[in-house]
């Protein structure tokens, strides 16, 4: 077991996502209590005191983000749930959208009350079909039952909630790119300052929070910041939904209390590496975080401070397990192809740099790598760092530099000999076949 459960604390059944089931679990009681007994600033104070960190990847304190919004400044404020889950390896928000959509809606209504928001949005990636049907269906249920719309719970509070579908773009997961998209334009990220909480959607103060961050709000307000802080670590309070995939025996979404041992999570809770193979490395928090070797993760715990101390990050909780024998050159090829494909083209270092990196790794794999290519990849990564509007250029560089730093020999081997140090595979070797081969030669 991976500690206290705050979000995955109920049994998933074919109807557990419905309003009736959510009400039976005590759903919307917190919203009602908030609307009847609390003032907006009291809610924000509680959220700030809880110390909850953003769950989208950057781990920025949600309370501080909310604190920028000035109540009674006589302009509209907007709230948007970032459900554009697209960081490769991450599929946790999908779990909330599919199984606990009303928890998100109730939490958003509480947040909207705290931030004096009249119109809120769920920006969901265009490819998500079932998650979209679940959240859109739940919104209709909530409207029909009076938990959205005018006069919620018999009070004067009104909130409209729109589920807005993206159309296929990684950069729209970046909060300012998301708002550009929500304005019906291409999803170009914007320069900060001004912060989005000062000038966001249509130049109005806007809070963009990750789905999982928002889903925690109802529980925080219901049980109080003190109770929330009893879970997790001092610097990372609460839990994290970790989505684990790749060469792992039991992939899926796990709710993990911050501070839980990293290696034990992979080895025991997730069943270890597929087919009993050895562990080569783990990408801890989405492909943009630096890779950690099997030895690296041994002393670590699953919280931001610990994973950051190893030079990586817990990011979005999108963990990818990689078995012994996997070719890291081919792995990087998949990553840079992705970054090249998704660069929005606004900033030169990213637009050109991603293409260069993609072509360099492609030519290494084609057996035409040049001796200077490894340093060239590092130089391009470094040139991207901090020189682009959004973090995508930096992220691609971190991933690249991280892999090269730990597996430089594999790149050197391919450049020198024109072939993989391993057999160039990404798919785990079929262990039964390999065992039979070893037995019978």
């Amino acid at each position, binding site marked *: 077991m991976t500690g206290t459960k705050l979000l995955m604390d109920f049994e998933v059944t074919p109807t557990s996502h419905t309003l009736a089931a959510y009400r039976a679990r005590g759903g919307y009681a917190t919203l009602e209590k908030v609307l009847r007994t609390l003032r907006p600033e009291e809610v924000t104070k509680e959220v700030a005191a809880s110390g909850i960190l953003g769950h989208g990847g950057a781990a920025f304190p949600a309370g501080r983000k909310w604190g920028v919004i000035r109540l009674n400044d006589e302009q509209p404020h907007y709230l948007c749930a970032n459900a554009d889950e697209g960081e*490769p390896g991450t599929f946790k928000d999908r779990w909330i959208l599919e199984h606990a959509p009303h928890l998100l809606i109730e939490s958003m209504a509480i947040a909207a009350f705290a931030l004096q928001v009249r119109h809120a949005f769920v920006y969901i990636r*265009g490819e998500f079909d079932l998650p979209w049907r679940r959240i859109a269906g739940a919104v209709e249920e909530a409207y029909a039952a009076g938990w959205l719309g005018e006069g919620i719970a018999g009070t004067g509070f009104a909130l409209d909630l729109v589920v807005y579908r993206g*159309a296929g773009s*990684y950069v729209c997961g970046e909060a300012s790119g998301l708002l550009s998209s929500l304005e019906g334009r*291409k999803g170009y990220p914007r320069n900060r300052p001004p912060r989005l909480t000062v000038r966001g959607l249509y130049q109005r103060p806007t809070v963009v929070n990750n789905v999982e961050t928002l889903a925690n709000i109802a529980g925080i307000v219901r049980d109080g910041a003190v109770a929330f802080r009893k879970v997790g670590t001092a610097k990372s309070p609460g839990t994290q939904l970790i989505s684990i995939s790749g060469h792992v025996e039991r992939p899926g979404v796990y709710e993990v209390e911050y501070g839980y041992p990293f290696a034990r999570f992979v080895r025991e809770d997730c069943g270890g590496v597929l087919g009993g193979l050895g562990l080569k490395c783990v990408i801890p928090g989405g492909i943009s975080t630096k890779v950690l070797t099997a030895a690296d993760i041994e002393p670590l715990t699953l919280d931001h401070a610990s994973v950051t101390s190893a030079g990586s990050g817990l990011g979005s909780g999108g963990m990818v397990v990689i078995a012994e024998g996997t070719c890291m050159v081919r792995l990087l090829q998949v990553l840079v192809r992705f970054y090249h494909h998704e660069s929005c083209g606004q900033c030169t270092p990213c637009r050109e740099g991603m293409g260069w990196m993609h072509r360099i790794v492609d030519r290494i794999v084609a057996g035409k790598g040049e001796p200077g290519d490894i340093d060239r990849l590092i130089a391009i990564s470094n040139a991207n760092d901090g020189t682009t509007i959004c973090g995508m250029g930096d992220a691609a560089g971190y991933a690249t530099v991280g892999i090269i730093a730990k597996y430089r020999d594999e790149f050197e081997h391919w450049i020198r000999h024109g072939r993989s140090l391993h057999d160039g595979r990404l798919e785990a070797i079929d262990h039964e076949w390999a065992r039979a081969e070893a037995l019978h030669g």
Partner: protein
Amino acid sequence: MRRRFPGGFESSLVLPCLRRIQEDRGWVADADIDALAAWLGVPRVQIEEVLSFYTQFRRAPIGRIHLQACRNLSCCLRGAESVIDHLRERLGIEPGQTTRDGRWSLSTVECLGSCGTAPVVMVNETYHERMTPERLDGLLERLGR
């Protein structure tokens, strides 16, 4: 949907309207762009930009059955490359192409957020997860191949 938007949000309706047009027609034609620009009062160039920016919008017809195979890391680690090769072979087309009878289209796409049930192939709007060449054969048979 429109009544739940705040006033002055006409521009925001570009994406939902294009999605709706594409659901009806399968792709977005020049005439659709003109009509939408007039209806929402947004510049035509904004609609063109949106259409070329997002991967899900199409400016030309594609096959009635659109197979989109994820090629990102988690899917590759679980055999996406064999799945894509198998699809190529079975359909006789490369990613980005449509069969001559206009029935099948094949694309490769980036992460669909289905990494825990990789590899994933999307058939029109629906995810088909934990794909193997054998399971693909069953799926293709059900789809009439």
